[in-house]
């Protein structure tokens, strides 16, 4: 199996996310044994944010890292495991609510592809950037 980042690179629809992870200095962490659960927003999810949102984050990497860490959980958790618990604490520190099982919804994002198994965790592809709060 490939790592989380290799899986994302191969998919071809996570260009913005991968750039952001690199800028935020989180690549090494996400390449470590982990394991992690990553809610990975597709490129369209970043593009849907109002103008300037991504640029401000890219210009300020600690703040960017904080938003990205909200998309990561410690441990490898499948869809079936995630829906058993109302919310999960992200690496950012704020809880990520699991709002619905069918369709599978994480906070206000819908999981378009669940359970991409990787060497060091699980990736769930989501259609919206999720924000703490």
């Amino acid at each position, binding site marked *: 199996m490939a790592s989380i980042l290799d899986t994302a690179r191969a998919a071809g629809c996570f260009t913005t996310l991968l750039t952001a992870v690199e800028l935020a200095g989180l690549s090494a962490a996400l390449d470590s044994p982990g394991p992690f659960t990553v809610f990975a927003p597709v490129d369209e999810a970043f593009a849907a944010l109002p*103008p*300037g*949102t991504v640029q401000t984050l890219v210009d*300020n990497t*600690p*703040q960017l890292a904080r938003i990205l860490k909200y998309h990561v959980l410690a441990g490898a958790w499948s869809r079936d495991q995630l829906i058993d618990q109302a919310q999960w604490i992200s690496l950012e520190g704020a809880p990520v609510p699991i709002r619905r099982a069918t369709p599978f919804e994480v906070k206000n994002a819908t999981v378009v592809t669940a359970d991409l198994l990787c060497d060091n965790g699980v990736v769930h592809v989501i259609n919206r950037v999720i*924000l703490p*709060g």
Partner: protein
Amino acid sequence: MTTPIAAVANCPSAPLIPPSQHPWAEVIHRLEAGGSMLPDTPENLMQIIGIYKAYAVPMDFYWRDLLYIAEQVFLDPLPAFKYFPSQEYLERPNAYAGEQSKLRLWRGGEQAHPELLAFMARGETTAMPKLLHHLWHDRINMEFAEACAQAMLWHQAMGGRFNDYLESEAYRANADRAIKAYFRRNPLMLGLYQAFPEMFLEKVKQLSYYANLGLFWEVMAPVFFEMSDIYDEGGFQGVPDAMNFLVKGIFAVAGRPIYHHVFIDGECIEIIPKAEGFTWLYEAALPYVEAVFYRTSPFRGTKSYNAQAGQVPSHQADFHYGILYADVYPVGSAGIPPTLLMQDMVHFLPPYLKELYKQHRRGEQDQLIQLGITFQRSMYNVTSAVIQALRAALFYPLDDTDPEHLLANRRFFEGQMDRFLRPEARLGAIQSQDYR
């Protein structure tokens, strides 16, 4: 609950969810349709844009001086000149305006606004040394800005992680380093610090909120200037346009770092480093709205409160003395911080607002009250933008077709409107144009 939803959902022309039964259902339905708490009328649009412009000019002074106090004046035991920001701070390029800005969304220049500089030179009286302007109180009222920062300090736990950090060991260590560096040639103050360390730490926390608010307003000033320019060019078609412009602005700068640096003999000491990851939205904007728009505290001189009779809430979260609840007449005539803001704004009113105030009530005689109510309308619109931004960030698009998502939006809007059920709320008053 599911049956009626399913029933109406089967009919293509019917709404996907039943109407709200909330007392503010009319406003909730307007929010769900992409509107603002403030009704969409041409006069409301004119009032709010005009007052944003009048607010932005003193705000351009507030943010510069707040950062000057937090970063340079710092713990000066006799800060007699704290309202005299240095030339460096008056010329400090706005991080979100001007050609040097990395995010060039708003057209204004990076320097202090020309109307502000003109007012600082002449005031209401005439050109004279700034010390005389200060002593004659013919100046920008920084006391208002300080009252806002102090309200944020006093209410503290309002979401975000800023306040938690102020209680951390890391913050204490950074503040200790700054205090010792600042007083390294002042054994008396160092001795007092040894004797009363918490007092000094509390003062540094207060200054951290000055930095927080300064960084918050640094963004808002160019946003409001831009809105005024767009309106003058005929660009906004209604109140929702103005609200949506604010929503986009909130997202655009949401990730702006909030920090507190102090400069002592040219050395920068990071009391709150940018690396902590604190953001404009979570650590500044949301606490500011909560502390200043909703809560603040009863102002002396406006009314006598009997706390034993329950006239002042026992929980800070229930405080309701902000602009969204204010009775503008006593507030606007009592010489307290909101009056000071009104006095600051009256200097920079656009001509169309001056004309409007002449036509109503007592004309120029009570324009401070009329502009206070305009300000109240405009802050209901800003609060609407914050509510819509939070809805967009945490919930679902307004045109979502999933009834469960729409119900989640509904619950969120109803929860927000619950705060305006108390009789002091002015949400009902601003629905009418007769409220002036």
